[in-house]
């Protein structure tokens, strides 16, 4: 417990130092944040374009898809804020700079996560919150305690799932220097797919997203529960409240993969 408290306070110090450095360039920070907001908004525009042609998307109305989209995007945006710099992890391995993390008295994953923090990524968070506001405002949700609880836990679970997938796939970098493209297919690809209702996809893709990479638990299942919607796929209702459990399981798998990978780290050069 004391260990955890110490890690959290160290995390706060490290991030605060980063933020201070970034805020030295206020104009650049403002432009980048607005740009991130606008670019991510295009994703939602794409969904609106689809709805201008069809009234429904696999039994989902536009406001329902907006909820789905907002939950998925919010989870992804927070994950991106905290660990988006993992994109650069293969370079860290290739250049041998991971060595430095192994000679410091802290967990390697902790050090990789605290290695950067890009405040401009808040632009995407703002965009997702805006869409969430629109969805909750438009939908006449019949609020019950369990629905409120599921909604409240959706984003934290989603962040943990995205983060776990990200960490697990980035471990490819320990074996091959070409890991980045493969990893991106899972992370960014998964993030894109989670914004849409799962039932519109082909069966093999659904299985992949449901079981192997648990993206369906990020927004699809919890949204069904919050909306009181019957699953168009007819899957067991318990899945709709299982996201936190799936998230914890994903975290355990990811940290196991990470530990295994670090043990096989070969460093760079002689």
């Amino acid at each position, binding site marked *: 417990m004391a260990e955890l408290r110490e890690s959290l306070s160290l995390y706060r110090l490290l991030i605060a130092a980063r933020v201070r*450095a970034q805020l030295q360039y206020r104009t650049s920070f403002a432009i980048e944040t607005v740009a991130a907001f606008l670019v991510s908004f295009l994703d939602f525009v794409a969904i609106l374009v689809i709805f201008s042609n069809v009234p429904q998307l696999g039994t989902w109305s536009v406001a329902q898809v907006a909820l789905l989209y907002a939950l998925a995007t919010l989870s992804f945006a927070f994950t991106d804020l905290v660990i988006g710099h993992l994109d650069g992890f293969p370079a860290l391995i290739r250049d041998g700079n991971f060595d430095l993390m192994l000679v*410091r*008295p802290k967990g390697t994953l902790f050090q990789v996560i605290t290695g950067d923090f890009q405040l401009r990524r808040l632009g995407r968070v703002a965009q997702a919150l805006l869409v969430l506001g629109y969805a909750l405002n438009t939908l006449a949700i019949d609020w019950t305690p369990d629905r409120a609880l599921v909604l409240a836990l959706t984003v934290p679970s989603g962040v943990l799932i995205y983060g776990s997938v990200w960490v697990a796939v980035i471990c490819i970098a320990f074996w091959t220097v070409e890991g980045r493209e493969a990893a991106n297919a899972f992370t960014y690809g998964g993030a894109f797919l989670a914004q849409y209702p799962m039932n519109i996809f082909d069966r093999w893709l659904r299985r992949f997203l449901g079981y192997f990479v648990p993206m369906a638990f990020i927004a699809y299942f919890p949204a069904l529960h919050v909306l009181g919607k019957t699953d168009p796929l007819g899957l067991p209702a318990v899945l709709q409240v299982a996201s936190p459990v799936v998230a914890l399981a994903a975290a355990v798998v990811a940290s196991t993969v990470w530990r295994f990978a670090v043990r096989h780290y070969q*460093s760079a050069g*002689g």
Partner: protein
Amino acid sequence: MPLIELEGVAKDFVVHRSAGLLRRDRITVQAVQDLTFSVERGTILGYIGPNGAGKSTTVKMLTGILVPTAGRVSVGGLVPWDERIALARRIGVMFGQRVQLWWDLPLVDSLELLRHMYRVPADRYRHTLASLREALELDPFMRTPVRQLSLGQRIRGELAAAMLHDPEILFLDEPTIGLDVVAKQRVREFLIRANRERGVTVMLTTHDLADIERLCSRILIIDHGRLIYDGDVNALKERYGTERVLVVDLEEPQGPLEVEGGRVIKVEGPRQWIAFERARTNAAQLAAAVATRANLRDLTVEEPEIDDVVRRIYLETRP
């Protein structure tokens, strides 16, 4: 009990080489083989050898970065890769070619963050930092972002970072690489002080023979992953490093000069290379002798390169 102990340590790397379009061959490279030595507390140990000899691999195994393929390693009574975090609190590590400080932050912020990471108590931190600031002359650039520091300033900052938690052992990989003569001397003086005043054990890899002469009480030479010399610096110099070369530029080209105690090994136009034994004569006597026979324009003295020394030892020790 020795502070550092290695017994029969080996490290193999598996590398893949493409053989044709789709096939890849697995090749095992033995970076280090059957390494056995120990280091007593308070030593300044020079660990030298040509590029690719296995120096960095050894240091990485001692600091917990790499897991050896075979053998036993103990550093301060710990198994480095199993007790990595406990070990990290007791050692300081600096890689001359890597940046450990936070690139965008002022030096003082980096040090402050490391204080928290290493859990250095506030009053001890103040005390240690004050003495490091004085010894490394950090004050002029304490508030400068690391990316704006010169190499010499950054290396001093890195040394401060490595010493902040009062480590028992300092592992330095090429600490003086790329530094000018003044900066090199400053680093050396700091290391000698740290060793004398705080009793820090130092293990450094280097290509610079001057580092070794001024610093090391003991040296190990490694080549092709094997230990080929273990002893003190004087013995090494007596056996192998005694020959120096005086390079003279004459007013005009002429045949090889004949001077007492020297032997011309190369002539290139007006420039001649004269090898001499340090025990028999010195550069000044030799230069004076040259001046009586020709008009001297310029001269320099070449120290033996560590790679030359290593090559000579290698030739002698080869079965």
